[in-house]
């Protein structure tokens, strides 16, 4: 697969390490009353959609960026790739 790195252009997926569902970026607030339940969901429960999936890839053999890649899991079509820090920053 080829990943369209937002800074470096098309890069071979072999340069990356895969982590999984981008929901891992939504770490719960530890100070909440239901923190333990929220962390349980965060750590153990993932959606596994057949279709469009937002997921985290680490450019480990490259510039060490974490990317949020939007991929169709049924066709492997890559619909987009963003820097995770931009995605997180924009959400704040």
């Amino acid at each position, binding site marked *: *697969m*080829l990943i369209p790195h937002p800074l470096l252009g098309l890069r*071979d997926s072999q340069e990356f*390490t895969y*982590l999984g569902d981008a929901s*891992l*970026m939504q*770490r*719960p607030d*530890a*100070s909440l009353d239901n*923190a*333990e339940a929220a*962390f*349980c969901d*965060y*750590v*153990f429960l993932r959606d596994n959609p057949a279709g469009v999936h937002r997921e*985290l890839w*680490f450019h*480990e053999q490259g510039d*060490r*960026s*974490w990317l949020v890649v939007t991929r169709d899991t049924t*066709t*492997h079509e*890559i619909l987009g790739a963003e*820097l*995770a*820090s931009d995605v*997180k*920053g924009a959400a*704040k």
Partner: protein
Amino acid sequence: MTRLTGGLIDRNAPLNFTFNGKTYKGFQGDTLASALLANGVQLMGRSFKYHRPRGVFAAGSEEPNAMVELRTGARQEPNTRATVTELFDGLIARSQNHVGPLERDFLAVNDLLSPFFAAGFYYKTFMWPKAFWEKLYEPMIRKAAGLGSLSMLPDPDDYDKGFLHCDLLVVGGGAAGLAAALTAGRAGAEVVLADEDFALGGRLTMESDLLDEAAATDWIASAKAELESLPNVRLMTRTTVFGVYDHGIYGAVERVSDHLAVPGDKVRQTLWRITAKRAVLAAGATERHMPFADNDRPGVMLAGAMRAYANRWAASPVKQDSDAIAIFTNGDDGHRTAMDLIAKGANVLGVIDARDAAPRFGDYEVFAGSTVTGTKGRLGLTSIEITRNGQSQWHNVGALGVAGGWNPNVHLASHHRGRPVWDDSLLAFVPGPNGPAGLIPAGAAAGKGGTEEALSDGMRAAITALSEIGVTASEIALPKAENMPSEQVAFWHVPGTKRATKKRAWVDFQNDVTVKDIALAHKENMTPVEHLKRWTTLGMATDQGKTSNISALAVMAELTGKSIPETGTTIFRPPYTGVSLGVLGGGDTGPLFRPRRLTPTHAWAEAQGAEFVEVGPWMRAQYFPRAGEATWRETVDREVLAVRSGVGLCDVTTLGKVDVQGADAGEFLNRMYSNMMGTLKVGMVRYGLMLREDGHAYDDGTCARMAEDHYVVTTTTANAGLVYRQMEFAHQCLWPELDVQLISTTDAWAQIAVAGPKSRELLTRIVDEFDLSNEAFPFMACSELTICNGLRARLFRISFSGELAYEIAVPARYGHALMQRLMEQGADLNATPYGTEALAVLRIEKGHAAGAELNGQTTAQMLGLGKMVSAKKDSIGAVMSRREGLAAEKRRLVGFKSVEPQKQAMAGSHLFTEGAVQDMSTDQGWLTSSCYSPHLKGYIALGFLENGDTRMGEIIVAANPVEGQTVKLEVVSAHFVDPEGGRLRA
């Protein structure tokens, strides 16, 4: 000899080769199959199941029958198709899958027993008694049904991997492929043209068609010369594109030196990963046959293959020139073979055409409305039975060509589950519209098999492909060519073999699947193609049913009364043809399996005679034996005692190092580590414990605060890359607002542990005016400094051994020199290098956790570090570490002493109270680490024991049922040495 005239062989370059020990002669340009045919050898092998005598059936990589073993010794290679084996001088080939000589295979008895080996026999026959399957039936069947044999020696050849990028990949160098490559090449596009054959031209080299009213080889030669002259075109012969992968990535194997006796200084094969913006699939077509009774005798082959042998290799399919040849066809194509054979002077009996209104294109007999209904000849065809309207007559022939129509090679187009679609006019599946993105089928692969239409379709495909990526290509002048007549009817097999007991008509030759087997599968309701395949093993042999799948579908369609596309389609998967494991490894074998990392003192340690051990990707010195030491234990005991009584030196560079800088570095590390790091004073070091987000202990190390906004943290060797990745994740994905920068400096700094009561004295001799006194530089201090007259260094007063100890870091290139300097300066102090074994003994004696204790199943509480998980702040894993299941965990890290000091309890042993039944319900924990302690002169261990911290002095049992061992242990503190820590602070 049955060599014909002409052909593309070099008669000035004769080659000698042997087949089953007999020497034959061929020519440069021959394949093993063509040379054997030209020597009158029809019998080339035995079938997989019934051990039936078999001859060559095809002329390309689709060959099901002529499988041979090549070469001898370590280069012996089984299951090689004689049809694609290029002849070289001295080639040694043997037929396979027979016991005794090929002509009298003892396992041919299987053929007589064939009623017992019908479809699905595995599932029915060998079920009882159950234990017999593994011990008797399976090994027996495997032995009898095996193909070739392996040498069992290491492969002496080299393999390589390569990467290519191009605008257009052209798969296949026949008429369509060459036209596509010329069109794209002239347009200036980056082109890769790959063909599995050693010669370019594809089917053009095997036909008698004229191009521009001259031999097709003239045009091929000029096209090849032009493509070779273009710097933007790469021609790759002997290269099979075997698979289509995501986003325009193609896998290909180049057989660099398979055609040489030995590769010499070349690699044997190269695995290419080709990234192409677009690709043209010009892979041609494969002829199919029409099953009839006893159609598997040597001498029966595809009519197109027969034509190829005659035209390209000047080889006749018969044993003697005088033997007659017949053609059995359902269309015009079979007549072409007759015409070409006649032109070569062969003795053609005639064409048996299933059509009542059969045409005649030349001076030969036509048996219209006729079929072949039987054959004779034990080791080679001697006669065939021709039947018309129930009237049969036997004719003597030495060879029979079968022309059942052509199947486009849609394989690559279906690699992404692209379903081929049925074309009723072509009576074949062609690539469907939902194939891999960017792959455009052309020529015969797209159902356009006439020479004229293949050429123009190749050009069109290239223009279309390039226009999609913004490159304008012009039409090129193509040579004048014709499309030969190709009328045919839907005639799939000769009726009468579905149920008759004696007559068998083979569909899949390599796996011995007959029409009757398909009828049986239908009767047993295995009608979906997926079931048909697995029940009968059709298409599951090394040829993957290239010549049989469609015929089988047609037979099943007839049985079910459905159309062929309703019955099913075959979805092909990579690889197109077999790929050797050697080339997939691409040379990454033995020590080259993965990169090996060497420490800065590796060469020095080697010179000291050190033994090395693999630690993850690193090679680390394990121990440094001295003359007179009989066992490794003697060496390790000496090294340990040297550290405890004097000073020892150990390269600890492999521990991960991460440089953390920025205004929020302290806050960031507060969130990464379970304990507080933000409060650490500049110039001090703190032990840190990291958790996983699920609350388990993950990694440990030290954090040294070099400046207000600068920390240097260490990780374990094993987790160096993972922890760094996790820290980058936390920084970029969780808290990008923190002002912090991270970089791994593991390889940038060489780090040496200087440990033992005399370590301060030794270091005093190399530092530049630096106060090492306990007051100025106490336990857990750190500093930047210079040593050896100006070399910048970092010094940490940390201890893994429990002794007064330091770790000193210098830029990696000075690591070797630093070790030498320390050894010179410490000669009178008996400075002793120690390896990973002594390192482990020292840390077990001190009760420090390492990989065996931080194994992913343990918690901070279990490690006795529960208080390190700060409740004052959030950190990775903090919330989950407090959940009920983990908080209730009662096992604790403690030490153990063998009651009989010289008896070792193995790490991994499980712990039980004395006299208890030993099972899961009474299990009290396990041993993690164990060693001989020269300090205590007996075996000790660390482990997790239920409520261990309250059971000091109790005698328990360590059980190792794998080795039938039980050892009595006394529960003690994990700190075997200096539990008060006085030595650390001395």
